[in-house]
Structure formats: C-alpha cells, structure tokens
C-alpha cells in the first residue's frame, strides 16, 4: 500500500503540473489575444470603467433603466439567488412588495407587470431584462428625463437582442447597462 500511495502522490503532482499549471496558463495566453473577452467585457464611458457588459448592476434613480431584482443587490461581492421555493410565503411577500414599489415608482406604466420584473434572478447579476420590462419602464424614464416616451421606446427597440436560431436558444433580452449608456448619450445629444 505504501508503494501505491507513493505512486499516487507522484502521479498527482505530475498531473497537477499538466492540468493545473500548463493548461490554465495556455488558456490565459489565448486570453491575451482577446483581452476584452478575458476581462469580462468592461464598459467604459469617458475613459472610466462603469461596469461589465455581462453583469447586472445595483438599482439606482428613476431616470435609469433598472435590472431585475437581485438577492445580493448585484453588489458583485457574491452571487446567487433567493432560493425561496414557490410554496414559501416569503416569496409571495417579496413579489407583493416589489409589485407595490414598482407601481408607486411607475404611475404611468401598463397594468400588467412582466414576470422578470417581480422575480429575482439566479445569479443576482442578470444583465438583461425582457423587452417587455424595458418597454414597461419607458414612461418613467422618459418623464424623469423630460424625453418623449416614443423616443425612449425606440431606443429600447434598438437594443432588443433576439434569441439566436430563430428563437430556439434562450429568450429575447435587453442588456440594461448598454441601454443606459445609450440613454446617457441620448440625453447629452
């Protein structure tokens, strides 16, 4: 058994060099060729990093589009969902509270609130909302910025990413950070 154990230790060390050093190093080297991807697609505005195109951001003022609810407030320090089961009264309470808050903040929005606006995401960092939820927020954003609702809706429409393969892969979505960056540019223009 000692012979087996010593062979095991040696095998593990050799394979560690192969799989734990050389392999990740090779992929890191490939990453140098696509630095933007390797770094998580940072978004810069005016030379300042304002986030990652892949990450949802914490909620902010009425003049910005909001992402989905997050169990970690999208702090980025951690990630994960609420893990509340459908039979858990806490989930019903959370959904009711979100509904109330959304109605108060969006007096001019349509009656029906999209599902992704009321439910927290799996990662807590979902970068996207449904096109329906983005459109739903348009009246509030337009009012807060003194813009035309139709102008804001057009901006939303320009940022809808279809689900690939004719709708088979995933769902239609709108990246909130990209939409907000475009919104800021619109306000300046």
């Amino acid at each position, binding site marked *: 058994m000692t012979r*087996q154990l010593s062979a095991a230790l040696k*095998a593990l060390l*050799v394979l560690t060099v192969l799989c*734990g050093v050389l392999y990740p190093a090779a*992929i890191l080297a490939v990453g140098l060729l696509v630095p933007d991807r390797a770094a998580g697609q940072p978004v810069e505005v005016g030379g300042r990093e304002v986030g990652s195109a892949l990450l949802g951001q914490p909620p902010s003022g009425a003049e910005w589009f909001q992402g989905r609810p997050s169990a970690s407030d999208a702090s980025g320090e951690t990630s994960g969902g609420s893990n509340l089961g*459908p039979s858990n009264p806490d989930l019903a309470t959370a959904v009711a509270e979100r509904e109330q808050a959304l109605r108060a903040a969006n007096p001019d929005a349509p009656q029906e609130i999209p599902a992704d606006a009321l439910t927290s995401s*799996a990662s807590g960092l979902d970068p996207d909302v449904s096109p329906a939820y983005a459109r739903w927020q348009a009246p509030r954003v337009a009012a807060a910025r003194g813009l035309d609702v139709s102008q804001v809706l057009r901006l939303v429409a320009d940022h809808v990413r279809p689900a690939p393969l004719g709708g088979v*892969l995933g769902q239609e979505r709108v990246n909130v950070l990209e939409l907000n960056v475009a919104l800021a540019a619109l306000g300046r223009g």
Partner: protein
Amino acid sequence: MSIALQTATAVLLVAAILAATHVPLGAWMHRVFTDERDWRVERVVYRLVGVDPRTEQRWQGYAGSVLAFAVASVALLFLLILGQGLLPWDLGRSMHWDTALNTAVSFTTNTNWQSYSGESGAGHAVQMLGLTVQNFVSAATGIAVAVALLRGLARRHSDRLGNFWVDLTRATVRILLPIAAVAAVLLLLGGVIQNLASPHSIETLTGVQQTIQGGPVASQEAIKELGTNGGGFFNANSAHPFENPGPWTNLLEIVLILLIPFALPYTYGLMVGDRRQGAVAVGVIGTLLIGSIALATWAEAHAAAGPLASMEGKEQRFGIVWSSLFASVTTGTSTGAVNSMHDSYSALGGGVPLVNMLLGELSPGGVGTGLYSYLVVVVLAVFIAGLMVGRTPELLGKTVGRTEITSAALVTLTMPALVLLGTGLSVVLPTALDARANDGPHGLSELMYAVASASNNNGSAFAGLSADQPYLNLLLAFCMFAGRFVPIVLVLRLAGSLAAQGRRPVTAGTMPTHTPLFTTLVVGTVIVVAGLTFFPSLALGPIAEALS
C-alpha cells in the same frame, strides 16, 4: 415560440449534435484504451511515477490504486486549501477546516458539492492547482473504472483488468485535456473570463459601487462540464454571467456535459465486439433523459404558481426551457452545475432533478460512472429475467453467478442506504433542521436533495440549505466518499469475476440483450428499483408539496 415547440427543438438540436459526435469520440476512446503504444508525454509521466505501463493489475491491485489515488488527492487538496494563505493569488480567501475537508472530498469524488462560496472560499491558486486538477483526474478515474469493467466483459480467462495509472494518464492526456482546451477557447470567445485579476471596485454609470470579480474561469469551466464535475468558480455557478454569458455558451456547456456520457456506450459496443449493446445503452439513457426534460419543462411552464413565479431563480438569457433542460442534464449526469436555482423550482419541477439523482445517476450519469452504473443495472435486469424464465442468467456469454449478483446488488443498495439513513438522521437533529431555508415538505426536499446529491456524487443543491456547518459538512463528506468508492470497489470486483470466466456460446435459449424488449426491461428495472426505495420519502417531500 411556444414552450412545447421550443423544448422539442432544443432537445432535437442537442440530440443532433450528440448524434454527430458520439461515433468518432466513442471510437477514439476505444483506441485510447486498446492502444499498445504510449505517447511521449505519457512515457515521461510513467517514468516520473515509477510504473511499468505494460504491467497489468488484478482487480484488487486496480482498486488499491484507485483508493490510493483518492486518499492522496483528498489529503493534498485539504492541505492546499488550508495553506492557501501561503500561495500567490490567495486574495485573502480561506475556509474553515470542516469546509476544507468537505471540499477536498467533494472534488476528489467528482461530486463538487460546494458548502463554500467561490467568491469567498477559494483564491485563484486553489482554483487552478487544486480544483481544476481534481476536475480532470476525478473524471479520468471514472472513465478508468468503466473501462476496467468493459475489459472484464470483453476478456476471457484473464485475471487482469489493465493498469490504473495508464488508464488515468491516457484518459487525462488523450481525451480530457484536448477537448477541454478547445472548449475553453470557445467559452473564452463566448465571453467566459480568463484572467488572474483580483476583485476590483468600480463606480457605475448611475453612481453606485460594484465589485467585478476575476479569475481563470474559462479553463475551469470547460473541464467542469466535460468531466461532469459541476463545481462553480463562483457561487452562482453556471448562472453567473462570467461562467455562462449567453445562449451559445449555455448550449456549449450542455453539449460538453453530455459529450462523453453519450459516447462511452459506443466505446462499450466496440470493446465487447457488439455495437448493438451500445445502442441499447443509448436507448435506455436517452429515454430516461428526454422523459425528465419533458417533465421538468412542463412543470416549470405550468407550475401551480404560474409562469410568473417560474422566473424566480432563473436568468433572462436562458428562460424556462433552457433552464429546465440544463437542470435535467446536470442531474441526469452527475454534474451538478446549475444555470438556475433548483430550490426555487415548482414542487414537481424541483422533484425531477431529485428523481434523476435517485435513479442512481445513470441517465446518462457521470463520465464513466454512468456507464458502470448502467451496466450494474443491466446485470440486475439479466438476473431478474433469468429468474422469470428459469434459466441461468447470462450477459454477453458471461454467467451472472453469486459473485456477480452480490456485487451488483451491493452497489444498488449503497446509495439508497446512504440517502435514506443520512436524511433520516438529519430530520431528527436540530442542527440540520436549522439549516433549512424553507419549512414543511419543501424543507424535507432540501435536506433529502443534499444527501442524495452527495451520495450520488452529483453536487447540485437546493441551495437555500445553509450547508456550511460542521455536521452537514462531515455527514455529506462521508456520503460522498462512501457513495463514490464503495461502488467502485464492488464494480472492480464484478469486473474481475467476469474477466476470469470464459465466454459461453450463444444458443437458442440465450436471452438476447440487444432488443427493444431488453431495453424496456432495463428502463423498468431502473424505475422499479428507485421507485420502491424512494417513493415513501418522495411522497413526504415534493409530492406532498405538489398536492398541497
């Protein structure tokens, strides 16, 4: 597009990809494990390790090597995690000793249960030197054991099953590393990050602070899926946008999970010289997997609370269909990666992943483990059929005698014993009950899911359970180790006993094991065994929740 249509297209798409890959990959794996020659890099490994690659082992020796490698892996990984403060890129992260032990066992057993959170428990050095390495070698170990069993079925009058060190090295060097490297590059191009940056803080456009994480994620993500490991670099696992940024990476990750489990049956057919046997295996695992996908998607789309609540714990870019599909695939294999939070699934939708695990991780199961678990059920099915018609049960000309059936029966009993005793113990201990996030039947499901996940080496969770506490860390570590290595030793014993036999000629009385009838018999055996064992506890958990 309706949910039903999207599900059907999604399943067809994945099936088409696997249909194209399983033959070349299966044939390649057959060549890898029957090749007489060694690659140069492999010869270097054998020289450094000090083994003669041409010396084959008896089943006891093979099992001894597997166990020695496991013990060395747990010990080294445990020390690496505890000592990570001494390494570069530790980022000030650490784990308590019981968490570290749980993690070491978890990654060594291909479970990848995580009672730590990636963002606070593991620095980049531990992720690469420890966790990525175990992602490779635990998968390679599973493949090696499956190949040893195939040799047992194929060989005649032999007391040798091959050399574990050779199988381990070849599985790593010739199968896992090349595919993982290609997949990692594709994931990187798809947006999965790969850097050594520390978390840094930024101010958003709207004036709020946010932390952006870094890490060598793409390299780990590729083998995490390919090796059916499942341990997330980040706490949110494949739901995290840095691990799984979009619909294409999601498709790639699903395909990677299924790639080897669906190719190994073809290898099996080639090894035993009868490709129809492999086709039966694909028929069984395909039936079970598609059934579970259909059920999970239907449940999530028509959950009692409606599609509204179904988006709780799911990502917008994946939606209901690709979340439910991922959930079925990750639990049908022993992967345990998640792109949505199973704890928030509807009662029935969350019951499907649980049942997938309780079937014994063979639809299609983890790399290697799925195939040997399947073959154990085949032995059972042959035995039951033999009893029914009153003939000596045979599989591929090998008699299923006392050694064979006791080994198979003990493998079949190990996992349920661990799950039921472990869950039973936990529901009477206040420390375990306090860990639940939900009350009532859903709370029981949380505990049972955890023990089932550990005992089956799956690693997914109803993540509401606060599992990072000494009792659960140690209980689950025990379940993971016993759930992995008790079956492995028994499977190798079975392989040894099969290899020692000659091959009986096929006669008019031989029951064919390549017909649709036999496929049905195997599916039936899987469902009846799991149903009889687990129905009472499922009735108290997901079924009670669904009916209330």
